[in-house]
């Protein structure tokens, strides 16, 4: 039905979005790329010039980079493990009928709507403080020596905070998927004598394979960018114990004013994120064809 006329107006309607997004994608990225080959520090703006790959060499051979890469992977992996397993358990629980299920579901998804700076500060102070925190009180009640979470196990603490924020996301998506599971098929399997475990492995899990993949990929995109939680709790420390790639680039740019080095780091972060993005885009693209 699309006539020449409607096709022309369709193009006109899409143009503004495409143009601004194109500019948004190309201009800053090109600048980052350009800066990454420059010697450029905001504190000494006169020394300016090409340095070839020197910024990359510095960034990639800096021991902090190795730490940051490890921390980034541990953070993403740790949060994914907790949220996928925890989210699956919560979704299975919320799929069962019980009294007040609607309210419990609201309670469980609530953390997702808490802004990152609030959740990080609430956990850091009121829960994880080694003297006045609730965790310390629980530990003492049980007769255990309380631990200083953010000093003794800083990365684990950050993982817990971020996992708490993302648990609702995994739960909600897996629950939505569970609810679209064919109940007749379930009942048929039950009639044929399949046990709870058998039904879970052969019916439920295969059905959840796709949503779990979606959860993993989308969370990864966001988790690679974790920043606020680190900024307000540990500031990347102690040492580089909680510095991830994002925080490392941030500290080079806005704390050390090293534009060249930070830009090289930014490009490295873009490359890393793109590796994940390729998989996600393929998965969602397949969905478009249906």
């Amino acid at each position, binding site marked *: 039905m699309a006539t020449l006329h409607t096709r022309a107006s369709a193009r006109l309607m899409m143009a503004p979005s495409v143009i601004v997004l194109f500019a948004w994608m190309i201009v800053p990225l090109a600048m980052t790329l350009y800066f990454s080959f420059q010697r450029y520090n905001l504190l000494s703006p006169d020394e300016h010039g090409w340095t070839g790959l020197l910024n990359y060499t510095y960034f990639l051979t800096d021991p902090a980079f190795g730490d940051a890469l490890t921390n980034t992977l541990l953070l993403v992996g740790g949060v994914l493990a907790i949220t996928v397993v925890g989210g699956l358990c919560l979704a299975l629980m919320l799929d069962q009928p019980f009294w007040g299920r609607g309210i419990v579901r*609201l309670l469980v998804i609530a953390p997702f709507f808490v802004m990152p700076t609030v959740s990080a500060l609430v956990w850091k102070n009121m829960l994880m403080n080694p003297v006045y925190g609730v965790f310390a009180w629980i530990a003492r009640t049980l007769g255990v020596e309380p631990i200083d979470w953010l000093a003794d196990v800083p990365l684990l603490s950050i993982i817990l905070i971020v996992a708490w924020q993302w648990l609702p996301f995994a739960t909600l998506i897996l629950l939505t998927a569970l609810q679209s599971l064919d109940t007749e098929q379930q009942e048929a399997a039950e009639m044929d004598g399949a046990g709870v475990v058998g039904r879970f492995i052969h019916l439920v899990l295969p059905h959840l394979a796709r949503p779990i993949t979606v959860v993993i990929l989308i969370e990864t995109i966001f988790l690679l960018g974790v920043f606020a939680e680190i900024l307000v709790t540990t500031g990347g420390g102690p040492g580089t114990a909680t510095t991830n790639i994002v925080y490392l680039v941030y500290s080079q740019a806005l704390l050390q004013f090293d534009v060249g080095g930070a830009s090289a780091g930014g490009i490295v972060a873009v490359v890393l994120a793109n590796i994940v993005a390729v998989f996600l885009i393929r998965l969602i693209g397949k969905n478009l064809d249906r």
Partner: protein
Amino acid sequence: MARAVTTRRKALLTVIGWTVGFLVFFPILWTVLTSFKTEGEAIANPPSFLAFDWTTENYTEVQHRSDYFLHMMNSVVISFGSTALGLLFAVPAAWAMAFAPGKRTKDILMWMLSTKMMPAVGVLVPLYILFRDSGLLDTRVGLVGVLTLIDLPLIVWMLYTYFREIPGEILEAARMDGASLGKEIVFVLAPMAVPGIASTTLLNIILSWNEAFWTLNLTTSNAAPLTAFIASYSSPEGLFWAKLSAASTLAIAPILVLGWFSQRQLVRGLTFGAVK
């Protein structure tokens, strides 16, 4: 489900369910409770759960000392502004993609999605410099602009998945009756598109309200929204737990309520329609 659920089983599940729900919700509950305590009771040991002198002075104190409403207004302007501007760009685009798809439509959609994958930190340096040189640092206008661009792919996608569900036959019928494109949009399609636009708006306001990379890096004080304002409590001299809790409660309450209303849209929006 036809299966009979025994009352015992249901009672057991109820206990487990509520316990787990309580545990997950506890940090938020604790924040709300602490906001009504005095600073002394906030760090009392053992902690008092309900038996304390309830006070609302933290709330007045927070406004008094740090002009809370300025930051609240910044959050409102930034999240509503970027959402409105994003819709202005996205509605026509999603519309065209859903109702007059061409050969390239799918490619354009996937490309838009890919811009969302670009890590913010990759463009932090140039954006900071551009903002500094053009005087946009710490302004609401600057942040509205950046958040609009960040949100745009998601808005287009969400709208597209909603618009695509509007049956095309209705369009053809309207065309047969001789309706122009303009009339077609205003009288036939717009009423059917409103729910999708509303859900998109809601989810996007929530996401921009909580955005905490650009708001932290591109503002200092004047344009700082609540995310950045709360972050100022991280300094050691700012450790007043009761006041931190009061400020936090105010910052999350409105968005939590909106969020509870938008559960289903959340799934659809954040998975780009991959899970419905």
